[in-house]
């Protein structure tokens, strides 16, 4: 299978701390790949580098064969990014927001219309899309933003904590959408989360990240079996325990 994401020896050094300390991983086409770890482990920093927002101190990142550092504009055509804390323009309606975003990806009005139709279906917001986004609840806004991320049919969808802070109903809807959309369109998804159960449900493979380092990679089933753990949460604690003891 073709590799959509290739990350080699990624380092990000801030003046006061080392956020990433030589991260290496690959994501294959059509795969849902999870970066899991505690707060401050380096998940968001990794995703922001892949999304061309910040630059690494050293290392190499490629998306669909394009160098993120040197070919940022081309990379932005291939990806769609959902930040952990994202908002929509509060003075625009949901539909206006979707049209505004879709217009950057398509020149053809028909394609823009199709993208908005897809987003309407993905969000499940129906007529509420005609309202200003300032009237939306947190869950509705997150559904709109996920729809915006997926409607442009990206080669790589980067989702940072997609269900963080949502109630069960909205979180359930979002997980189902991500899984079915990826299967249906063969979209590669790179997801970060500290919700181990969510990752276990969604991801084909995961990388466990702690203190800026990837400490283990594999499918949830493989990792659980390797560490004789009941779930990914136990696996993570065992792996981190080993890594810290090492």
């Amino acid at each position, binding site marked *: 299978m073709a590799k959509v994401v290739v990350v080699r020896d990624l380092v990000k050094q801030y003046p006061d701390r080392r956020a990433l300390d030589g991260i290496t991983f690959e994501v294959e086409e059509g795969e849902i790949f999870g970066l899991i770890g505690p707060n401050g482990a380096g998940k968001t920093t990794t995703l922001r580098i892949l999304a*061309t927002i910040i630059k690494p101190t050293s290392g190499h990142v490629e998306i669909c064969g394009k160098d993120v550092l040197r070919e940022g504009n081309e990379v*932005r055509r291939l990806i*769609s990014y959902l*930040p952990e804390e994202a908002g929509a*323009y509060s003075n*625009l309606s949901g539909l*206006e927001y979707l049209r*505004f975003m879709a*217009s950057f990806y398509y020149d053809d009005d028909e394609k823009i219309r199709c993208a908005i139709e897809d987003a309407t279906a993905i969000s499940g917001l129906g007529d509420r899309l005609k309202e200003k986004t300032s009237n939306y609840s947190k869950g509705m806004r997150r559904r709109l933003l996920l729809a915006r991320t997926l409607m442009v049919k990206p080669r790589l969808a980067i989702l940072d904590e997609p269900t963080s802070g949502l109630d069960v109903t909205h979180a359930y809807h979002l997980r189902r959408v991500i899984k079915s959309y990826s299967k249906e369109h063969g979209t590669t998804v790179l997801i970060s989360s500290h919700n181990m159960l969510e990752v276990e449900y969604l991801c084909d493979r995961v990388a466990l990240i702690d203190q800026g380092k990837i400490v283990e990679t594999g499918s949830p089933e493989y990792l659980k079996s390797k560490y004789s753990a009941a779930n990914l949460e136990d696996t993570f604690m065992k792996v981190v325990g080993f890594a810290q003891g090492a």
Partner: protein
Amino acid sequence: MPKGLRLLIIKEVKDLLRDPKILIGMILFPALILPLMGAAINISTGSLMEKSSGPLTVYVLDEDRGEIAQRIIGSLRDQGVAVRLVGGPYEEAIREISGGGILVVLPEGLSQRIESGNRGEVLVYYGFKDFSMLESLNAQRMAGLLNGIESQLVRDIISENMPGANPDSVINPLSVNEKSVIKGVAQPISPYVLTNIVRMQGLMGPLVIMIVLILAMQVAATSIAIEKEAKTLETLLTIPVSRLNILFGKLVGSVTIALLATVANVFAFTYYIGAITSQATSSIGNLDLTSVGLIPPPEGYFLLGLTLFGALVSALALALTLGTLSQDVRGAQSIIGVVIVPIFLPTIFLMMGDMQTLPLSIQAVLYAIPFTYPVLASQSLITGNYGPILAGLVYMAFFTLFTLYVAAKVFTTEKVMTGRISFKRRKLQ
């Protein structure tokens, strides 16, 4: 225009115009409140003027009973004053005006003194009840009436003592006819009137420039800070549009809103000024500068346009940079509150005075501020003194390029996400 830039400008204008803070605070509020203030002042002044132009009642204590006293009383009646003669004693007459009013006392021997060539004294008492504008205006009316009566008395005395002479020629033997020479042509206008016109018309230019610059900076800094606060900036940076287009989208969107706000402000301000001065129409304001040869030449407007464009772009680039480095809208507005001081300074200094008359140190500071040059350019429309502006244009070009470079640097690097301006004091170890 690139598609991405066009989309960003449309979104920017739409989003900002729908923002109640911008729509109400910057456009609707000044457009409504200033005309309302003007109308309120107009109504209250109008009703005051109407009341003060009604019949004036004056109490007169005539202790003289002579020819001159009779003439004074007659003149007052001729002027439509309701004269009420009161008897003595003097203290009782004063009591008549304890609730407001005017008492004129014509002392004994007044006529005799004037007829024998001496000055005669007339006592006028103004009774105050509520210290209102009406009482003040009535006092001014009374003083004006007495001046008129005195002037008529002088004419009568001249006619009696110099038969055949024109009293006006005796009072003002010299007729001074002042003319102002503008660009080598003598124009029939007094220098005081001319300088007042130029000064008044010259006030508007700097004022409008100041309003445009300040509003544009506030809009720009707020618009980027709103993106940060609403967490939309991070997404915007990952869509397929160049960072420079995002920067220019913000610049053009902010200028559009600032121009709309300026039109609203200038319209409202003009209406306000018109309303409050309509009761006291002055011949000074009605004179057209073009009729006396003060037509601003096209090159003057061109220079004004260039300096204004440079000032606007550099001010916006500065505001966007500071807005980007602020944590939220409040932080951006606080920083802009400080940065607009250099915009106020040249306007305030140059609105009321000339650059040449200022101390050298202040001149140096003003010339160092790039926002001085549009104000100078607006004044040079009338004076034609383009020298400092041409030199300033080179300086402004460098400043504008520098601010744009800094803004582009902030926008095209990760500083747009990670940069921070912090006023927190570092702790001592």
